[in-house]
């Protein structure tokens, strides 16, 4: 079996056995959104409300647990000696998590479009950026603390703090669009990617 095929097989099995519960929870969140919010006939600013309040939480659900299957050091040691390098396993997990992270807001935006709300590609990019920021925070927190509760705590508290500190957070304010700001959220996207990218080698070389 070639190296790429091994990685794909590992990713497929991982997706089925480890990732599914987290994906189901994220899907549940997306399905809950039309129950909590009215999604019909919203203008652009109104459309940002459900997207900015709910979508960042999918980042926490999908990216924070990417290192969770190897939380037991014994399991980690076994996985580390497999033919698929650990960093490739983690990267594959991060990639398919990112894929769903992009798909879920797209799904919601499509529904909103059908319900005659004014949605734009920028709203999708904003949702992905915020999700990535919180997810990257969660992944790095888990790497640094090795404690799943603390790992979830950091991005959740950042989300909560956004309600209070608001515009003081500048370009890292999660709820800017629904408050009328047109500031780009690309800094959140880049920071999220950076945090995620840094967490993988950290985790691989931890206790090496």
């Amino acid at each position: 079996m070639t190296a790429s095929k091994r990685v794909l097989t590992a990713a497929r099995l991982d997706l089925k056995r480890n990732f599914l519960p987290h994906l189901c929870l994220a899907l549940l969140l997306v399905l809950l959104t039309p129950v909590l919010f009215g999604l019909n006939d919203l203008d652009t600013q109104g459309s940002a409300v459900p997207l900015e309040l709910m979508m960042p939480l999918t980042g926490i659900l999908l990216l924070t647990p990417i290192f969770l299957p190897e939380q037991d050091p014994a399991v980690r040691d076994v996985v580390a000696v497999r033919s698929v390098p650990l960093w490739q396993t983690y990267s594959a997990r991060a990639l398919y998590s990112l894929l769903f992270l992009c798909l879920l807001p797209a799904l919601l935006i499509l529904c909103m479009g059908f319900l005659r709300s004014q949605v734009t590609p920028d709203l999708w990019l904003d949702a992905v950026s915020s999700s990535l920021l919180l997810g990257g925070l969660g992944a790095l927190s888990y790497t640094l603390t090795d404690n799943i509760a603390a790992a979830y705590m950091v991005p959740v508290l950042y989300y909560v703090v956004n309600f209070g500190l608001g515009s003081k957070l500048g370009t890292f304010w999660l709820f800017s669009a629904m408050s009328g700001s047109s500031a780009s959220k690309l800094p959140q996207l880049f920071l999220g990617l950076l945090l995620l990218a840094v967490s993988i080698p950290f985790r691989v070389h931890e206790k090496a």
Partner: protein
Amino acid sequence: MFGKECKKAAFSIPFLLLVLVTFLMYWSQIGPDYLSQSKKLTEPQPGENYGTTESNDPELVMPAALDSLYAEFTANSYTTYPIGFYHTVKLSGKDTEKMAGLLSELTGKTPEELLARLDTDAYEPNSVLAVIGEDGEIIPTAPQKNAQNSVSPVPGPAYDRFEELMAQVDSLLGGGSDYAPNSLSGFGRRAKTYEEALADYRAAKGIDHFSGAHARLFSDYMTLFSALLPAFLMVSECLRDRRAKMRDLIWARRVSSLRIAAVRYFSTVLLSMLPILLLAAVDTVRSVFLYTGQTVDLFAYFKYTGGWILPTVMISAATGMFLTEATDTPIGLAVMLLWWFLDLNGNIFQMGGGYAGFSLCPRHNSILGAQVFADHFWALAANRILLAALSLILLGASALILEAKRKGRWFSYDSFKARFNSRKAGSEA
């Protein structure tokens, strides 16, 4: 055993984060300013600006409410907040006719005249529908109405009849609109009179003894974070033994499951309350200095911390414990976050007190309103007692689950996952 558990939890990362966030939130949300000279409660003097208040004055409420309703009717776009979240309601043809009928009785125009005005420009372009407030809550704003669309209430109808019709309007919109009878006073906002301001001050002096007013505001803010933080600490403690592979060793001991669960639970509650109690003590001293020469209630902060904040901490920890023991996963965090989120938004119409319903974080986001607090005290007390009782029930349930696990009788997520994966592996083979 209790001491050891407290010591272990006190040196954990979640607890350190809990302390850090508690102080950070206190500093950023309440701020040391709230007990400064500028925020001191002083006796109002005649001729000052006393702020605004809501009223049920028909002469104010009726024209404003009708104006808003007519603007929404012509655009066929109604803003509601059925569970605290923003909804836009568009009525069907049949419901629009019903609405026209209600408006007809309110304005004196015929339904045909009203229906002819549908889809005309009711709002100014780019009207803002909601903004984020200082506390992070979503504040609906009234869209700017087109000056050409205007109606007045028919002179004569009793306010009771007006309220009945508005209740029907609210029902037609699915509830949660500004036209609900208990929300109509929002249309009657006016300047507060000297007598009303004096009554507020006397209530703050007589009922709150000044420190109680500040303590209530302290509790309002601190409860918001106390609803989430203990759950993280509790989940971490519950999963720690499994992670450290100490489970079997602990479960083999003679100590009862109830004792294990209770020790873990109460140590988490105590540690979660510690930073809040410290802040309460500091602010008690500050309030004494702020109101030098006046009688303050030295125990106000502790009474509010125990009666207002503690039940929220208890239910947060109990929910985290119960769901973690039941599933061996941190799903309790997701549940608490969702509950907190729904509660935060569901309470936006009760920021000044009221404490109705099964609220996780009762709100009273004002230094004033002592009379509101006194009038609704038993509603608040019932809410707090209910949450505390529920948390003890969840503690008991957690102990039962732990007992079942120790006897090998509990269906956990791990065993489900193992069975699912082995079945799939078998079928693939």
